[in-house]
């Protein structure tokens, strides 16, 4: 098989991987078009890293096939790796080297230093220190620089902003958006919904090794929401107020816990009730997945 201009950037068909008979990925069908940014979402242990390892040719599929830019990921792994940049989830580099020496090694392996100096400067990374003395965030920055420095056609990023402070995260989103504008295909693995919404065109959710949902990022907005934990001085009055507003809450000790998509619903419901405690935070991916699954189950039962 050879690459052609019309090939999808990434195509997986019935892709499965088992470790000692234990399935880690089950018949994944996935396609990413050139220039597209796909958010690959899933809780820890869902099969995201296994999928990435199959795409990179680190693992041989138990069954099914995967291609990158038309090249088979296992039998043509070398061609695949020529075209891409990769940032592992838990980036581990050579501690004895300085950041500069590490990037020089990468440049020799790619035969180009590319944008390494510019990227290091944008991410405010000191290249003269030994990698072993770097903080986790700085190692992550160095990992990002090596993945992006040669301007690859395809980027595979496994949780690229973990360990980065919010300011640097914004710089990374900015760089990724520039790459997106220039037509780079990005496979963006994450378990954070909000960052996928910021960067990606489409999303795919994987759970227990199976693709459970995919769609556009605007559809993802319908899935996301916030988790509200509220307690009242007068519990009966509070419960009544929530019922009146049509908000379904469950009891956890003294607290009422509910998920919402529009914060105004809660503000309206709680007006006039004496609130003892209130905590609002975005739903985690696990909670979104749990919510959407239970909604679907309820829907099935009522129909």
């Amino acid at each position: 098989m050879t690459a052609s201009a019309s090939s999808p950037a990434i195509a997986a068909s019935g892709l499965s991987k088992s470790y000692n008979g234990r399935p880690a990925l089950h018949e994944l069908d996935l396609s990413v078009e050139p220039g597209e940014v796909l958010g690959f979402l899933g809780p820890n242990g869902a099969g995201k890293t296994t999928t990435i390892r199959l795409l990179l040719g680190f693992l041989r599929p138990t069954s099914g096939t995967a291609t990158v830019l038309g090249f088979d990921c296992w039998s043509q792994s070398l061609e695949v790796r020529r075209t891409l940049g990769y940032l592992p989830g838990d980036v581990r580099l050579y501690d004895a080297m300085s950041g500069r020496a590490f990037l020089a090694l990468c440049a020799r392996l790619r035969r180009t230093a590319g944008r390494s100096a510019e990227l290091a400067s944008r991410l405010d990374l000191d290249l003269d220190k030994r990698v072993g003395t770097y903080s986790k965030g700085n190692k992550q920055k160095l990992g990002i620089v090596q993945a992006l420095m040669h301007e690859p056609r395809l980027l595979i990023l496994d949780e690229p902003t973990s360990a980065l402070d919010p300011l640097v995260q914004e710089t990374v989103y900015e760089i990724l958006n520039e790459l997106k504008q220039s037509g780079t295909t990005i496979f963006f693995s994450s378990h954070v919904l909000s960052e996928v919404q910021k960067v990606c065109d489409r999303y795919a959710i994987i759970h227990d090794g199976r693709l459970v949902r995919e769609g556009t990022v605007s559809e993802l907005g319908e899935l996301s929401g916030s988790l509200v934990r509220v307690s009242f001085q007068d519990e009966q009055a509070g419960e009544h107020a929530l019922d009146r507003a049509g908000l379904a809450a469950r009891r956890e000790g003294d607290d009422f816990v509910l998920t919402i998509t529009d914060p105004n619903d809660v503000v309206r419901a709680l007006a006039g009730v004496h609130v003892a405690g209130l905590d609002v935070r975005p739903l985690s991916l696990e909670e979104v997945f749990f919510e959407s699954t239970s909604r679907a189950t309820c829907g099935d039962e009522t129909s």
Partner: protein
Amino acid sequence: MTLVVIVRKLAAEILRILVAIGLLLSVFFVLGTYLFVDFGDMNQMAISRMSPEMIAGIFGGVLQGLEPLELWLVTLLLHPFLLTLLTVAVIAIATRSLAGEIDRGTIDVLLSYPIPRWHLPLAAALVQFFAVTTLVGVALGSVGLGLRLAGLELSSWPAFAWVAFNLWATFIAIGSVCLAISAHCDRHGAALARSAGFVMVSFLVNLLASLWSKVRLLEVLSVFHYYRPQPIVTADGPIWTDLLILITVTGVALGVAVAGFSTRDIATT
């Protein structure tokens, strides 16, 4: 091109340990050779009290026809200190390069670059080649320095050059087996333990088979059986069958390492 880059990276990583081993070997052989003047006779007397089986076990054959200085040097070239240091060098290179990269997790970034997988075991084999060549060269050079400092003359230099070549081939073979082990391990510690186990079992089998006639047949299974300085010095030339077997072991082990590493799953933890 990527092969050269990987070789240089690995060589830089193990440079310190090689320099340390080289210095230790140098001191051992300069001092050891120099001490012949004071202890050479004592060595000969001690060996003369040994049973023929023990002599055959330790030296790989009878000791007839060896000059006292030759006997002293043969003793040095069979000393466990030398064998241990060379073992440490080849195991360090083999385990650091393959299982070590996987265990440390650095393989994830390294293999995301366009490097054919077989370049990694091959690069490790090349570094082992250079390291063993250098260390054996240091040992031989240090013998020469020790002789000069002691004012001694050695007439059988060519024979000792063949001994050094036999030593080199033995440790290239051991290193290749360790590479084959490392290519199939995910953990640096597991690769170290298995490689050290292989060397120790091999050494003990050779020793036991040499000392105990009932298990003599087992000696062919040990890689150390094919390192025999004494017959080389006596015959003033190499034992070609030993060299052929060591080269075959090297070839098979490297084939297993390259094929195994190229087709295995790479899964860091």
